[in-house]
Protein backbone atom coordinates (compact mmCIF):
# COMPACT_ATOMS: atom_id res chain seq x y z
CA UNK A 1 0.00 0.00 0.00
CA UNK A 2 1.40 3.41 -0.96
CA UNK A 3 1.79 6.00 1.84
CA UNK A 4 -0.88 8.09 0.24
CA UNK A 5 -3.36 5.23 0.37
CA UNK A 6 -2.86 5.16 4.14
CA UNK A 7 -3.38 8.90 4.25
CA UNK A 8 -6.66 8.58 2.37
CA UNK A 9 -7.84 5.95 4.84
CA UNK A 10 -7.07 8.34 7.69
CA UNK A 11 -8.97 11.11 5.93
CA UNK A 12 -11.92 8.80 5.28
CA UNK A 13 -12.13 7.87 8.95
CA UNK A 14 -11.78 11.46 10.14
CA UNK A 15 -14.45 12.78 7.76
CA UNK A 16 -16.72 9.90 8.63
CA UNK A 17 -16.43 10.70 12.34
CA UNK A 18 -17.12 14.37 11.61
CA UNK A 19 -20.18 13.43 9.60
CA UNK A 20 -21.54 11.00 12.15
CA UNK A 21 -21.07 13.43 15.02
CA UNK A 22 -22.25 16.65 13.39
CA UNK A 23 -23.98 15.77 10.12
CA UNK A 24 -21.62 17.89 8.01
CA UNK A 25 -20.56 15.79 5.08
CA UNK A 26 -17.11 16.55 3.68
CA UNK A 27 -16.59 12.96 2.62
CA UNK A 28 -17.19 13.77 -1.02
CA UNK A 29 -15.19 16.91 -1.36
CA UNK A 30 -12.47 16.68 -4.03
CA UNK A 31 -9.47 15.29 -2.19
CA UNK A 32 -6.91 17.27 -4.19
CA UNK A 33 -7.95 20.67 -2.88
CA UNK A 34 -9.19 19.29 0.45
CA UNK A 35 -5.72 18.09 1.42
CA UNK A 36 -4.43 21.61 1.84
CA UNK A 37 -7.41 22.71 3.92
CA UNK A 38 -7.07 19.66 6.16
CA UNK A 39 -3.47 20.69 6.73
CA UNK A 40 -4.48 24.19 7.87
CA UNK A 41 -7.09 22.62 10.17
CA UNK A 42 -4.42 20.37 11.65
CA UNK A 43 -2.29 23.42 12.33
CA UNK A 44 -5.20 25.26 13.92
CA UNK A 45 -5.88 22.31 16.23
CA UNK A 46 -2.19 21.66 16.82
CA UNK A 47 -2.71 18.07 15.72
CA UNK A 48 0.28 16.17 14.33
CA UNK A 49 -1.83 14.02 12.03
CA UNK A 50 -5.31 13.67 10.53
CA UNK A 51 -6.31 10.88 12.88
CA UNK A 52 -5.16 12.90 15.88
CA UNK A 53 -7.89 15.39 15.07
CA UNK A 54 -10.52 12.76 15.77
CA UNK A 55 -10.53 13.24 19.58
CA UNK A 56 -11.29 16.91 18.96
CA UNK A 57 -14.49 15.91 17.21
CA UNK A 58 -15.78 14.41 20.44
CA UNK A 59 -14.06 16.38 23.17
CA UNK A 60 -13.42 19.90 21.89
CA UNK A 61 -16.43 22.22 22.07
CA UNK A 62 -14.82 24.64 19.62
CA UNK A 63 -14.08 21.96 17.05
CA UNK A 64 -17.07 22.40 14.74
CA UNK A 65 -16.70 26.13 14.25
CA UNK A 66 -12.97 25.79 13.63
CA UNK A 67 -13.44 22.87 11.25
CA UNK A 68 -16.09 24.64 9.20
CA UNK A 69 -14.03 27.77 8.86
CA UNK A 70 -11.07 25.76 7.55
CA UNK A 71 -12.77 23.11 5.46
CA UNK A 72 -15.40 25.13 3.65
CA UNK A 73 -14.25 27.33 0.81
CA UNK A 74 -14.76 31.02 1.43
CA UNK A 75 -13.17 33.07 -1.31
CA UNK A 76 -15.54 35.26 -3.22
CA UNK A 77 -15.62 38.47 -5.28
CA UNK A 78 -18.27 40.78 -6.65
CA UNK A 79 -19.10 40.23 -10.30
CA UNK A 80 -16.57 37.40 -10.55
CA UNK A 81 -16.32 36.25 -14.16
CA UNK A 82 -18.15 39.32 -15.47
CA UNK A 83 -19.12 37.56 -18.68
CA UNK A 84 -21.55 35.41 -16.72
CA UNK A 85 -23.40 38.46 -15.45
CA UNK A 86 -23.33 40.04 -18.88
CA UNK A 87 -24.97 36.99 -20.47
CA UNK A 88 -27.41 36.81 -17.56
CA UNK A 89 -28.45 40.38 -18.29
CA UNK A 90 -28.75 39.86 -22.03
CA UNK A 91 -30.29 36.42 -22.30
CA UNK A 92 -32.06 35.58 -19.08
CA UNK A 93 -33.36 38.84 -17.64
CA UNK A 94 -35.83 39.37 -20.52
CA UNK A 95 -37.35 35.97 -19.75
CA UNK A 96 -37.36 36.53 -15.99
CA UNK A 97 -39.33 39.73 -16.59
CA UNK A 98 -42.26 37.66 -17.81
CA UNK A 99 -42.83 36.20 -14.34
CA UNK A 100 -44.78 38.22 -11.72
CA UNK A 101 -42.69 36.80 -8.89
CA UNK A 102 -39.31 35.10 -8.92
CA UNK A 103 -37.56 32.67 -6.61
CA UNK A 104 -33.81 32.72 -7.00
CA UNK A 105 -31.34 30.52 -5.19
CA UNK A 106 -27.68 31.44 -4.78
CA UNK A 107 -26.20 28.19 -3.50
CA UNK A 108 -22.87 28.32 -1.71
CA UNK A 109 -23.13 32.10 -1.31
CA UNK A 110 -20.12 32.28 1.03
CA UNK A 111 -19.63 35.84 2.33
CA UNK A 112 -22.28 37.34 0.08
CA UNK A 113 -20.41 39.01 -2.76
CA UNK A 114 -22.12 36.90 -5.40
CA UNK A 115 -25.62 37.48 -4.12
CA UNK A 116 -25.17 41.24 -3.77
CA UNK A 117 -23.81 41.33 -7.32
CA UNK A 118 -26.98 39.62 -8.45
CA UNK A 119 -29.09 42.03 -6.39
CA UNK A 120 -27.40 44.99 -8.05
CA UNK A 121 -28.03 43.54 -11.48
CA UNK A 122 -31.70 42.78 -10.71
CA UNK A 123 -32.18 46.24 -9.23
CA UNK A 124 -30.78 47.85 -12.36
CA UNK A 125 -33.14 45.74 -14.45
CA UNK A 126 -36.15 46.68 -12.28
CA UNK A 127 -36.63 43.09 -11.18
CA UNK A 128 -35.41 43.11 -7.60
CA UNK A 129 -38.78 44.03 -6.08
CA UNK A 130 -40.46 40.86 -7.30
CA UNK A 131 -37.63 38.53 -6.29
CA UNK A 132 -37.24 36.27 -3.30
CA UNK A 133 -33.54 35.53 -3.20
CA UNK A 134 -32.42 32.60 -1.06
CA UNK A 135 -28.72 32.78 -0.32
CA UNK A 136 -27.45 29.62 1.31
CA UNK A 137 -24.16 28.30 2.60
CA UNK A 138 -22.86 25.56 4.84
CA UNK A 139 -20.95 28.01 7.01
CA UNK A 140 -22.69 30.00 9.72
CA UNK A 141 -19.81 32.45 10.07
CA UNK A 142 -19.74 33.12 6.31
CA UNK A 143 -23.47 33.80 6.42
CA UNK A 144 -22.99 36.22 9.32
CA UNK A 145 -20.51 38.16 7.18
CA UNK A 146 -22.84 37.99 4.21
CA UNK A 147 -25.76 39.39 6.20
CA UNK A 148 -23.64 42.37 7.23
CA UNK A 149 -22.53 43.02 3.66
CA UNK A 150 -19.42 44.92 4.70
CA UNK A 151 -16.30 44.64 2.58
CA UNK A 152 -12.86 46.31 2.52
CA UNK A 153 -12.73 49.57 0.56
CA UNK A 154 -9.53 48.58 -1.21
CA UNK A 155 -11.41 45.90 -3.14
CA UNK A 156 -14.04 48.24 -4.54
CA UNK A 157 -11.97 49.39 -7.50
CA UNK A 158 -11.47 45.82 -8.67
CA UNK A 159 -15.13 45.08 -8.09
CA UNK A 160 -16.09 48.19 -10.04
CA UNK A 161 -14.00 47.09 -13.02
CA UNK A 162 -15.69 43.71 -12.98
CA UNK A 163 -19.10 45.34 -12.56
CA UNK A 164 -18.46 47.53 -15.62
CA UNK A 165 -17.27 44.51 -17.64
CA UNK A 166 -20.54 42.81 -16.79
CA UNK A 167 -22.53 45.63 -18.37
CA UNK A 168 -23.00 47.92 -15.37
CA UNK A 169 -23.66 51.51 -16.36
CA UNK A 170 -22.97 53.24 -13.07
CA UNK A 171 -20.32 52.92 -10.39
CA UNK A 172 -20.47 50.08 -7.94
CA UNK A 173 -19.78 52.57 -5.12
CA UNK A 174 -23.31 53.84 -5.64
CA UNK A 175 -24.48 50.69 -3.92
CA UNK A 176 -22.35 51.10 -0.84
CA UNK A 177 -22.16 53.36 2.18
CA UNK A 178 -18.69 54.20 3.44
CA UNK A 179 -17.62 53.44 6.99
CA UNK A 180 -13.96 54.28 7.59
CA UNK A 181 -11.99 51.90 5.35
CA UNK A 182 -14.97 49.65 4.82
CA UNK A 183 -17.91 49.71 2.46
CA UNK A 184 -21.37 48.54 3.48
CA UNK A 185 -24.05 47.41 1.04
CA UNK A 186 -27.04 49.77 1.07
CA UNK A 187 -30.11 48.41 2.86
CA UNK A 188 -32.36 48.58 -0.22
CA UNK A 189 -30.37 45.77 -1.80
CA UNK A 190 -30.77 43.50 1.21
CA UNK A 191 -34.53 43.59 1.60
CA UNK A 192 -35.36 40.70 -0.72
CA UNK A 193 -32.56 38.39 0.36
CA UNK A 194 -32.87 35.62 2.93
CA UNK A 195 -29.60 34.18 4.16
CA UNK A 196 -29.92 30.68 5.53
CA UNK A 197 -27.91 27.58 6.20
CA UNK A 198 -28.15 24.78 3.70
CA UNK A 199 -25.77 21.91 3.18
CA UNK A 200 -25.58 20.89 -0.47
CA UNK A 201 -24.22 17.49 0.46
CA UNK A 202 -27.13 16.47 2.67
CA UNK A 203 -30.05 18.86 2.41
CA UNK A 204 -32.80 18.64 -0.18
CA UNK A 205 -35.16 20.76 -2.24
CA UNK A 206 -36.71 23.56 -0.22
CA UNK A 207 -38.44 25.70 -2.83
CA UNK A 208 -39.17 25.84 -6.54
CA UNK A 209 -36.72 28.15 -8.27
CA UNK A 210 -36.73 30.18 -11.46
CA UNK A 211 -32.99 30.66 -11.34
CA UNK A 212 -30.27 28.80 -9.45
CA UNK A 213 -26.74 30.16 -9.30
CA UNK A 214 -23.95 28.03 -7.91
CA UNK A 215 -20.55 29.16 -9.07
CA UNK A 216 -17.13 27.82 -8.16
CA UNK A 217 -18.62 25.62 -5.48
CA UNK A 218 -18.99 22.35 -7.35
CA UNK A 219 -15.33 22.31 -8.37
CA UNK A 220 -14.53 21.61 -4.73
CA UNK A 221 -16.66 18.47 -4.72
CA UNK A 222 -15.83 15.10 -6.18
CA UNK A 223 -17.69 13.88 -9.23
CA UNK A 224 -20.30 11.99 -7.26
CA UNK A 225 -21.22 14.92 -5.05
CA UNK A 226 -21.25 17.28 -8.03
CA UNK A 227 -23.75 14.99 -9.65
CA UNK A 228 -25.87 14.87 -6.50
CA UNK A 229 -25.96 18.67 -6.43
CA UNK A 230 -26.80 18.98 -10.10
CA UNK A 231 -29.60 16.48 -9.53
CA UNK A 232 -30.79 18.63 -6.63
CA UNK A 233 -30.73 21.71 -8.87
CA UNK A 234 -32.60 19.86 -11.59
CA UNK A 235 -35.26 18.87 -9.05
CA UNK A 236 -35.47 22.39 -7.62
CA UNK A 237 -35.65 24.45 -10.79
CA UNK A 238 -38.92 24.93 -12.65
CA UNK A 239 -39.34 23.75 -16.23
CA UNK A 240 -37.73 26.41 -18.42
CA UNK A 241 -35.90 27.76 -15.39
CA UNK A 242 -32.15 28.42 -15.36
CA UNK A 243 -29.05 27.08 -13.68
CA UNK A 244 -25.81 29.05 -13.78
CA UNK A 245 -22.44 27.51 -12.89
CA UNK A 246 -18.84 28.75 -12.59
CA UNK A 247 -16.63 29.32 -15.59
CA UNK A 248 -14.90 25.94 -15.49
CA UNK A 249 -17.93 23.98 -14.38
CA UNK A 250 -20.37 22.10 -16.57
CA UNK A 251 -22.94 19.34 -16.66
CA UNK A 252 -20.93 17.22 -19.12
CA UNK A 253 -20.17 14.39 -16.73
CA UNK A 254 -23.50 14.46 -14.95
CA UNK A 255 -26.56 12.24 -15.19
CA UNK A 256 -28.85 15.27 -15.50
CA UNK A 257 -27.11 16.64 -18.57
CA UNK A 258 -30.03 15.71 -20.82
CA UNK A 259 -32.52 17.56 -18.59
CA UNK A 260 -30.99 20.84 -19.73
CA UNK A 261 -30.07 22.83 -22.80
CA UNK A 262 -26.90 24.89 -22.69
CA UNK A 263 -27.93 28.36 -23.74
CA UNK A 264 -24.52 29.99 -24.13
CA UNK A 265 -21.26 28.88 -25.72
CA UNK A 266 -19.19 31.20 -23.59
CA UNK A 267 -20.53 30.75 -20.09
CA UNK A 268 -22.13 27.78 -18.29
CA UNK A 269 -25.80 28.78 -18.31
CA UNK A 270 -28.38 26.04 -18.69
CA UNK A 271 -32.13 26.01 -19.17
CA UNK A 272 -34.31 23.15 -17.98
CA UNK A 273 -36.16 21.55 -20.85
CA UNK A 274 -39.93 21.70 -20.84
CA UNK A 275 -40.41 18.18 -22.18
CA UNK A 276 -38.56 14.95 -21.58
CA UNK A 277 -38.07 12.64 -24.52
Amino acid at each position, binding site marked *: *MLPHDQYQIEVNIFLDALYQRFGYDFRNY*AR*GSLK*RRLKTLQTALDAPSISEMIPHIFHNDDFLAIALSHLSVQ*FSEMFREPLFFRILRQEIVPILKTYPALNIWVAGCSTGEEVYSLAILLHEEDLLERCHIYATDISHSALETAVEGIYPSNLIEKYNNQYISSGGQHNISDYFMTRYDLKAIIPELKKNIIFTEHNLAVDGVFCEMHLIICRNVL*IYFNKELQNTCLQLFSDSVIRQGYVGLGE*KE*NMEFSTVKSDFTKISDTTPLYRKKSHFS
Partner: protein
Amino acid sequence: MTFKIIIIGGSTGSVKVLSSIVEKLPKEIILPIVIITHTSPNNTSLLPDLLQNKTERSVLQCEPNMPIEANKIYIAPPNYHLYLEPTRYFSLSTDPHVGFSRPSIDLFFESVADSFGPETIAILLTGANADGAMGIEYIQKMGGITIVQSPDTAESPIAPHAALQKITPDYVIPDTDIISVIQDIHNRRFINRSFLKNDFT
Protein backbone atom coordinates in the same frame (compact mmCIF):
# COMPACT_ATOMS: atom_id res chain seq x y z
CA MET B 1 8.43 -0.27 -12.94
CA THR B 2 6.13 1.03 -15.61
CA PHE B 3 5.35 4.70 -15.80
CA LYS B 4 1.89 6.07 -16.12
CA ILE B 5 2.25 9.83 -16.50
CA ILE B 6 4.65 12.60 -17.49
CA ILE B 7 4.19 15.98 -15.83
CA ILE B 8 6.00 19.11 -16.89
CA GLY B 9 6.08 22.39 -14.99
CA GLY B 10 7.63 25.69 -15.97
CA SER B 11 7.12 29.39 -16.40
CA THR B 12 9.25 32.02 -18.09
CA GLY B 13 10.93 30.59 -21.19
CA SER B 14 9.15 27.26 -21.05
CA VAL B 15 6.93 27.66 -24.11
CA LYS B 16 9.80 27.05 -26.57
CA VAL B 17 10.95 24.01 -24.66
CA LEU B 18 7.44 22.57 -24.43
CA SER B 19 6.86 23.16 -28.11
CA SER B 20 9.95 21.18 -28.95
CA ILE B 21 9.13 18.33 -26.55
CA VAL B 22 5.59 17.97 -27.88
CA GLU B 23 6.80 18.04 -31.47
CA LYS B 24 9.57 15.51 -31.03
CA LEU B 25 7.95 13.07 -28.62
CA PRO B 26 8.16 9.64 -30.29
CA LYS B 27 4.89 8.02 -31.35
CA GLU B 28 5.47 4.92 -29.26
CA ILE B 29 5.35 6.90 -26.01
CA ILE B 30 1.66 6.94 -25.20
CA LEU B 31 1.84 8.16 -21.61
CA PRO B 32 -0.50 11.06 -20.85
CA ILE B 33 1.37 14.31 -20.45
CA VAL B 34 0.21 17.16 -18.25
CA ILE B 35 1.72 20.59 -18.72
CA ILE B 36 1.44 23.24 -16.05
CA THR B 37 2.80 26.72 -16.62
CA HIS B 38 2.18 30.17 -15.30
CA THR B 39 3.23 32.77 -17.74
CA SER B 40 0.75 35.62 -17.92
CA PRO B 41 -2.86 34.44 -18.18
CA ASN B 42 -3.23 35.49 -21.80
CA ASN B 43 -0.18 33.58 -22.92
CA THR B 44 -1.16 30.36 -21.28
CA SER B 45 -4.54 30.34 -22.94
CA LEU B 46 -2.79 30.30 -26.33
CA LEU B 47 -0.72 27.31 -25.36
CA PRO B 48 -3.23 24.56 -26.28
CA ASP B 49 -3.53 25.85 -29.87
CA LEU B 50 0.19 26.41 -30.20
CA LEU B 51 0.98 22.89 -29.06
CA GLN B 52 -1.84 21.30 -31.03
CA ASN B 53 -0.14 22.54 -34.18
CA LYS B 54 2.94 20.53 -33.27
CA THR B 55 1.40 17.11 -32.74
CA GLU B 56 -1.27 14.66 -33.78
CA ARG B 57 -2.02 13.76 -30.21
CA SER B 58 -5.06 15.54 -28.75
CA VAL B 59 -4.11 18.64 -26.78
CA LEU B 60 -6.77 19.56 -24.23
CA GLN B 61 -7.17 22.17 -21.56
CA CYS B 62 -7.96 20.49 -18.24
CA GLU B 63 -11.49 20.68 -16.94
CA PRO B 64 -12.98 19.39 -13.70
CA ASN B 65 -13.91 15.69 -13.91
CA MET B 66 -11.96 15.22 -17.11
CA PRO B 67 -10.34 11.78 -16.90
CA ILE B 68 -6.70 11.34 -17.74
CA GLU B 69 -6.20 9.19 -20.84
CA ALA B 70 -3.28 7.73 -22.70
CA ASN B 71 -1.64 9.53 -25.60
CA LYS B 72 -3.22 12.87 -24.75
CA ILE B 73 -1.63 16.13 -23.73
CA TYR B 74 -3.32 18.16 -21.03
CA ILE B 75 -2.72 21.80 -20.20
CA ALA B 76 -3.54 23.47 -16.90
CA PRO B 77 -5.94 26.38 -17.44
CA PRO B 78 -4.69 29.80 -16.36
CA ASN B 79 -5.64 31.24 -13.01
CA TYR B 80 -6.88 28.05 -11.31
CA HIS B 81 -5.01 25.55 -9.18
CA LEU B 82 -4.98 22.14 -10.83
CA TYR B 83 -5.12 18.81 -9.01
CA LEU B 84 -5.20 15.19 -10.03
CA GLU B 85 -7.73 13.38 -7.86
CA PRO B 86 -6.93 9.94 -6.42
CA THR B 87 -9.66 8.67 -8.72
CA ARG B 88 -7.53 9.89 -11.65
CA TYR B 89 -9.46 12.81 -12.98
CA PHE B 90 -8.70 16.51 -12.81
CA SER B 91 -10.08 19.01 -10.36
CA LEU B 92 -9.60 22.75 -10.08
CA SER B 93 -9.74 25.31 -7.33
CA THR B 94 -9.91 29.08 -7.05
CA ASP B 95 -7.97 29.19 -3.78
CA PRO B 96 -5.50 32.06 -3.46
CA HIS B 97 -2.08 32.05 -5.05
CA VAL B 98 0.52 29.75 -3.53
CA GLY B 99 4.15 30.79 -3.85
CA PHE B 100 2.81 33.77 -5.82
CA SER B 101 1.48 31.36 -8.40
CA ARG B 102 -1.85 30.10 -9.60
CA PRO B 103 -1.75 27.46 -10.98
CA SER B 104 0.81 26.27 -8.53
CA ILE B 105 3.25 23.72 -9.88
CA ASP B 106 3.96 22.62 -6.30
CA LEU B 107 0.31 21.79 -5.58
CA PHE B 108 -0.17 19.93 -8.85
CA PHE B 109 3.04 17.93 -8.62
CA GLU B 110 2.12 16.97 -5.06
CA SER B 111 -1.30 15.71 -6.09
CA VAL B 112 0.22 13.63 -8.91
CA ALA B 113 2.83 12.18 -6.56
CA ASP B 114 -0.03 11.20 -4.24
CA SER B 115 -1.97 9.51 -7.03
CA PHE B 116 0.77 7.92 -9.11
CA GLY B 117 3.75 7.75 -6.75
CA PRO B 118 6.68 5.96 -8.35
CA GLU B 119 4.88 5.78 -11.69
CA THR B 120 5.45 9.49 -12.28
CA ILE B 121 8.02 11.17 -14.50
CA ALA B 122 8.26 14.82 -13.42
CA ILE B 123 10.12 17.51 -15.33
CA LEU B 124 10.81 21.03 -14.05
CA LEU B 125 11.80 23.60 -16.65
CA THR B 126 12.98 27.20 -16.72
CA GLY B 127 10.98 29.52 -14.48
CA ALA B 128 11.10 32.88 -12.76
CA ASN B 129 10.24 31.79 -9.24
CA ALA B 130 10.71 28.82 -6.94
CA ASP B 131 7.35 27.30 -7.74
CA GLY B 132 7.93 23.64 -8.51
CA ALA B 133 10.91 23.10 -6.21
CA MET B 134 8.83 21.74 -3.33
CA GLY B 135 6.67 19.85 -5.78
CA ILE B 136 9.55 18.02 -7.37
CA GLU B 137 11.02 17.32 -3.96
CA TYR B 138 7.75 15.60 -3.03
CA ILE B 139 7.78 13.65 -6.29
CA GLN B 140 11.18 12.29 -5.37
CA LYS B 141 10.01 11.47 -1.86
CA MET B 142 7.14 9.43 -3.32
CA GLY B 143 9.47 7.57 -5.65
CA GLY B 144 8.87 9.29 -8.98
CA ILE B 145 11.58 10.13 -11.49
CA THR B 146 12.77 13.73 -11.30
CA ILE B 147 14.21 15.69 -14.22
CA VAL B 148 15.32 19.32 -13.94
CA GLN B 149 16.37 21.51 -16.84
CA SER B 150 19.99 22.54 -16.32
CA PRO B 151 20.17 26.15 -15.10
CA ASP B 152 22.70 27.17 -17.75
CA THR B 153 20.30 26.22 -20.55
CA ALA B 154 17.29 27.76 -18.83
CA GLU B 155 16.04 31.16 -19.93
CA SER B 156 15.27 31.77 -16.28
CA PRO B 157 17.42 29.58 -14.02
CA ILE B 158 15.60 30.52 -10.82
CA ALA B 159 13.25 27.52 -10.79
CA PRO B 160 15.93 24.94 -11.65
CA HIS B 161 18.25 26.44 -9.02
CA ALA B 162 15.50 26.33 -6.40
CA ALA B 163 14.89 22.66 -7.19
CA LEU B 164 18.60 21.85 -6.99
CA GLN B 165 18.74 23.44 -3.53
CA LYS B 166 16.20 20.87 -2.37
CA ILE B 167 17.05 17.63 -4.15
CA THR B 168 19.55 15.84 -6.31
CA PRO B 169 17.29 15.04 -9.25
CA ASP B 170 17.64 11.83 -11.23
CA TYR B 171 18.59 13.98 -14.23
CA VAL B 172 19.84 17.56 -14.66
CA ILE B 173 19.96 18.07 -18.39
CA PRO B 174 19.78 20.64 -21.16
CA ASP B 175 16.33 21.05 -22.66
CA THR B 176 17.63 19.49 -25.86
CA ASP B 177 18.26 16.19 -24.07
CA ILE B 178 14.82 15.84 -22.53
CA ILE B 179 13.33 13.74 -25.32
CA SER B 180 16.17 11.23 -25.34
CA VAL B 181 16.02 10.89 -21.55
CA ILE B 182 12.27 10.28 -21.64
CA GLN B 183 12.84 7.67 -24.32
CA ASP B 184 15.55 6.04 -22.28
CA ILE B 185 13.40 5.85 -19.14
CA HIS B 186 10.45 4.58 -21.13
CA ASN B 187 12.46 1.87 -22.84
CA ARG B 188 14.17 0.67 -19.72
CA ARG B 189 10.88 0.59 -17.85
CA PHE B 190 12.62 -0.26 -14.62
CA ILE B 191 14.92 1.84 -12.52
CA ASN B 192 16.95 0.00 -9.93
CA ARG B 193 16.77 2.25 -6.91
CA SER B 194 16.74 1.35 -3.26
CA PHE B 195 13.31 2.88 -2.85
CA LEU B 196 11.80 0.10 -4.89
CA LYS B 197 13.03 -2.48 -2.44
CA ASN B 198 10.35 -1.39 0.06
CA ASP B 199 7.41 -3.70 0.15
CA PHE B 200 4.26 -1.91 -0.90
CA THR B 201 1.68 -4.66 -0.87
